[in-house]
Structures are given as structure tokens and as C-alpha cells.
């Protein structure tokens, strides 16, 4: 069975300021696949996810990123999101003064508009958010509060998962989705993530620890060190890393 590539990253090099962080990164993710990228702190994992999303401040010096066959690097941040890329952020941003519902409604309708779906009216929207929120342990009170303001680490990650659930992206990047989560929250978030796995949607799970991969089981695992993938394998590679650590992959300096 031939697979349809969704995300194709070829020989990517990227800089932050004068510092080259991504140094020849190659990865192809096909439709329906879940890939895990594991690496030590400072390896450039967040940088990779930010570059895929088009965050300003990063310069691609060579290589290419294609999404559904299109050159991703030519698209604005919002175009990428509307095309179906979602970044579950390691450090979600607080937006004082903007109620979470308002923010969610703008996002959902922007994406729906792009997909030629009618905008949801307030009733439909509230109903959907309530139902999906409930599954993630998010109550009505929480989504009335300003976006991420005063949220605990766990609440922030739940809200990220809620956003992913209602935006229904075809490609999600989870950047350290498990950081700051206790075991119960981890289960809730993982269930939310797994609910989106339908054999069509793809994911890139970025993590330092193997723990999350017990719940979101990847099809492929890659070791990322010094700006490139140094080893690939199946889910057992994650267990191996957990045991041995990253030492053998990190260059002696």
C-alpha cells in the first residue's frame, strides 16, 4: 500500500540569530502516522516545531518543508494553521483580557471559513466547547477566564488539547505535552490526543522523556541531537533511550 506523504522535511538548516540550531534535518511523515522525536534539552526540538509553524525569528538557511505537497515556508502562520497544522505548545501564552471562549470562537471560525464550512453560531459553538471540554475536565468557568491567565501547568495543557480537539487539525505537533502534568492529567490529555488518531491524522510527538509514549504510542521514534536525526526506529527505541540516556548520541564537546 503506497502512503501519501503529509509533511516532508528535507535537509533543513535553520538559525536563531547567528546560531545555527537545525543542521540538516530530514523527516517524512505520511498520513495517519505518529512520529516521536526525542532528544536532550537544548537539542532544538522546540525550534523545529516553531519553524514548522512559521514563528517569526527563525531563519531557514537551506532545505525545504513541504506540507500536502505545498511549500510551507511561503505560508503565513495563520495559513499553516488553517491548512491543518497545530502546535500544542510547550509554553502556552497568556492573553490577559481575552476570554478563552472568545479566543476559541475566533480560531474555530477562522479555520471553518478556510474549509468552506459555515461559521458556528454562538449556541452551536458553546455546545461543542462544553462537550469537548467536559471530556478533558475543563469546566465552563475555566473557559470564561482569560486565555491561560492564572492557569496551572496542567490546565494550560488541557486547554491546548481542547484547542486541538475543536480545531481538528490533520497534523499536530505536541511539544513536551507531558511536561508539568501529573499522572491523571497525563491520562486525560493522552485520551484527548488519541481520540484524534483516526488513521488519517498525523502527529509529531516531541518529548524529552519516554513517559508520554506509553499513552500516545508512536509508529516511529527518532533520536534528535545536535540539530539532526541521529537514529530512527520503532517504539522500542524509546524504551532503549529511557534506559541508556542520550549520552551516546550527544557529541563530546
Amino acid at each position, binding site marked *: 500500500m503506497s502512503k501519501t506523504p503529509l509533511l516532508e522535511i528535507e535537509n533543513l538548516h535553520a538559525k536563531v540569530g547567528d546560531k545555527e540550531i537545525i543542521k540538516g534535518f530530514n523527516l517524512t511523515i505520511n498520513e495517519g502516522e505518529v512520529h516521536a522525536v526525542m532528544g536532550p534539552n537544548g537539542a532544538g526540538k522546540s525550534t523545529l516545531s516553531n519553524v514548522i509553524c512559521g*514563528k517569526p525569528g527563525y531563519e531557514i538557511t537551506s532545505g525545504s518543508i513541504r506540507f500536502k505537497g505545498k511549500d510551507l515556508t511561503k505560508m503565513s*502562520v*495563520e495559513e499553516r494553521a488553517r491548512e491543518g497544522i497545530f502546535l500544542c505548545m510547550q509554553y502556552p501564552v497568556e492573553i490577559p483580557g481575552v476570554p478563552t471562549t*472568545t*479566543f476559541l470562537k475566533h480560531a474555530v471560525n477562522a479555520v471553518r471559513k478556510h474549509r468552506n464550512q459555515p461559521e458556528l453560531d454562538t449556541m452551536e459553538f458553546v455546545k461543542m466547547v462544553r462537550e469537548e471540554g467536559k471530556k478533558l475536565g475543563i469546566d465552563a468557568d475555566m473557559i470564561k477566564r482569560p486565555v491561560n491567565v492564572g492557569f496551572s501547568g496542567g490546565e494550560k495543557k488541557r486547554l491546548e488539547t481542547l484547542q486541538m480537539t475543536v*480545531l481538528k487539525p490533520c497534523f499536530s505537533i505536541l511539544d513536551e505535552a507531558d511536561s508539568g502534568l501529573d499522572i491523571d492529567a497525563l491520562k486525560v490529555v493522552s485520551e484527548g490526543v488519541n481520540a484524534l488518531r483516526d488513521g488519517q491524522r498525523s502527529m509529531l510527538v516531541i518529548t524529552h522523556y519516554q513517559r508520554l509514549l506509553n499513552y500516545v504510542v508512536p509508529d516511529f521514534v527518532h533520536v534528535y541531537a545536535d540539530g539532526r536525526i541521529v537514529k530512527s526506529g520503532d517504539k522500542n527505541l524509546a524504551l532503549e533511550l529511557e534506559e541508556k540516556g542520550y549520552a551516546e548520541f550527544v557529541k563530546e564537546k
Partner: protein
Amino acid sequence: MTGLLQDIKLFGEYIPWLQALRNKGRDSFEEQGVPTAKTEAWKYTKPRDLNADDFVFLPSNFLDELRAETTEACCCHHENCDCSGDCRHEDCGCGHHHDDSHECGCGGECHCHNHELNLNYGIPFDAYQIHFVNGKFIPIFPALPRGVEIITLMEAVLIDEAKEHLGKIAELDGYPFAALNTAYMEEGIYIRINKDVKLDKPIMLINHTEAGSKNLFCNLRNLIVLENGAEAELVEWYKYAGAQKSRYFTNIVNEIVLGKNSRFNHYKLQDEAYKANHVSLSFVKQKAEAEYRSFCLQKGANIGRNEIKVRLTDEKASAEVNAAYIMSGWATLDTTTNIEHLAPQTFSEQLVKGVVNGDARGVFQGKIHIAPDAVQTAGHQLHKALLLSDTAEIDVKPELEIFADDVKCSHGAASGELDERQLFYMQSRGIGREEAKQILIDAYLEDVISKIQNEAVRNWIKSAAQTEPVK
């Protein structure tokens, strides 16, 4: 003489006290002139356009009728001139233009009686409506409840109602445009709310400008009197339609007298055409325990200045003066306040927030004066601005003059930019960058707009703040 001072026949020139007042205004404006860069109170806001010599002052239509009733020599019915009924009133000196020949120089836009008026501007909430078009009163009066009077200022002059306060609340020295306004005092309304009467819905004063290509000079003078224990709300709405290129000038003075224990909510939306000049001065005098609350959103005009001077003359009077401004292009929008605490236990609170884009300039000058006797008073003031471009500018001049002990006073100012991380976060969820900016701007203005007590007015101002001014 400048282009703003012209020889124009005004209503009631034969009324000595009125004419004396006008003459005083005229002398004072001649002495002060249009402010220059050297005028301290106008050092940030430079009304250069007002030195132009092509201002057109439209004669009042409605006041002709009053004039006809009160001036014996009027030839309105062609009795006194030998025209046999077909004169166009140019020669007889009655000042009438009752035909539709538009010889008043309006170029067809003067709204003579013969022209049908469309006053349906989509008034967003139930209100007692008072309409002006190009600064001229449209004689349609709302049905009012008992104990409330709204008449034209000149009618109020005729029946001696206005005499007690007119010109006594406004100051001329240091206020050149109040002086100019006084010299031309004619159009405007008089509002009186009787003792203990609580008005059930806001009064809305709309001045709708259709200047065409003319640089109209509109001069409005309103006198508002709340007797002891009265409560009322006034909404002023300055808007325009049609060609927007005119540098028309709207000059407003409100004199507001608040009796003991009265409450007055004063709201305003300044949405003039982008080349217009809008100068507004409200002089407020408050008796004991009177409460004055104002909110003004400025989003139009090239030069827009909303100035409020409050005198808290008796104990426990309080004033809340809030404002917001949203601007781009080359505009200068100015909020100037002066709160005088003249008695013990008086309170004032001010929050002014602005959003400045393009090459625009926001100005806030806020003065709090606390007189020697005014002990146990509190006066607080805060100005904040959001700068959306590198060339946007704000000038802030807070002034505290404190001559009493045992007072609580503060002022503060802050300016910032939109947070790129917040914009990225929203964009990464599919929200367009411009939409994301608007969400942040709305959030920025939320706290100041939420100070508007009347919910309908608040929602109206909120949606006005969300709509980009037309270029």
C-alpha cells in the same frame, strides 16, 4: 481678524445681556487668537487648519422662525419690502432663505425646509433624540416626561431661563475656543431636569455633518441644568456622511450645572470625517454630593480635542472622567482634563486609554487641582496607550496642584506595544494577524469601556471602537 471671525447676523442681537456676552467672547478670541505652538495648553495639539480663511458659517434655518415671531421689522411676509412677494430676501435684510435657491452659499446642502431630511441614522438604542445637521438644529422635539425641558438655547434665552447660568460656567481666559464659541452663541440646546426627576432613558444629541466641499464652521453651545436630586444621561454623537475631504470645524461648548445630590452621565462618540477639526469643551460645576460621570470615545477628525473642566465646589461631589481614543493616519486626538477639588471630601477618578497607529499622535493633559480647604479628598488619574507603529506618538502631561494636606492623589502613565508572542499564539490557531490585533485592542480597551454604566451605550461604544475609522 481671522477667518473664524466673520460678520454674521445672529439671533437675538437686540437682547442686551446676550449681546454683551457675545461681545465679550469676541474680544477675548480676538485677543487670544487661534492657539499656536507657544500656547502652553495647546503645545501638543496644533490646530493650524483653523487659520484658514475659507470657513463657511451657515445661517440658521430654525432660528428664522423664532426671529419672525420676535422681530417686528421682519419682512418674512414681504410686508416691509416692495418686492410684491417674489424677493429672495437678500436685500431686505431679514436673513431668510426660505426658498430652495440655496443662496445662503451652501451649495445645495443646507437642508432648507423644502428638502426632505433623513434622520434615520440607525440610532442604536432608545433615546430622546435631538438632531443637528451641519450644526443647525432640526426642529423636531422628542416627547418628554414631566419635569424635563429640552428647548433650543435661543428659546431658553427668550424666556429668560438661560440667563442665570449661560456664560457663567464657561471660562474665556485661557480657552480661546470657548471665547469663539461665545462670540457665535446661537445654536445649541438647553436641557433642564427638575428637582428629583430621574430621566428614564438617555437624551441623544446628534450632529450630522454633510459638509460637501465646504469648510463649514459649526458652533454649538449647550446648557444643561440638573436641579437638586435630578438624574439624567446625555449622549453626544458627532458623525458625518458624504464627501470626507472637508476641513470642517465643529466647536462645542457645554455648560453643565449639577445641583446637590444630582447624577449626570455624559457620553460621547466623536466620529468626525478624517480631515475635520473637532474642539469640544465641557465646563461642569457640581454642588454637594453631585456625581458626574463621563466617557468619550474619539476616533475621527484630524484634530480632535475633548476637554473637560470640572469644578467640585461643594462637599462630597465626585467626578469620573474616562476616555478612549483610536487613531491612525496623521490625526492628533487630544484629551484634556482639569478637575478642581474646591471642597472637602470631593473625589475624582480618571482613566484614559488610547490606541495609536500610523503617524498619529495621542495627547493627554490631565490636571488635578486641590484647593487649600479641600481636605480628605482623593484624585486619581491614569493614562495608558498602545502604540501600533514606530511612528505613532503620545504626549502626556499630568499636573498635580495640591494645596491641602490629608489628600490622596495619584497619576500614572504607561505605554506599550502589542505582544508578538500573543499574536503568534493566536495566528498559530488560524486567526488572521489583523483579526488577532483587533482582539488584543478590544481587550486593551475593555476595562475603560466597561466603566460606561449604561449597558446599551456601552455596547454601542464598544462596537464603535471595533470599527476601523473610514479613510
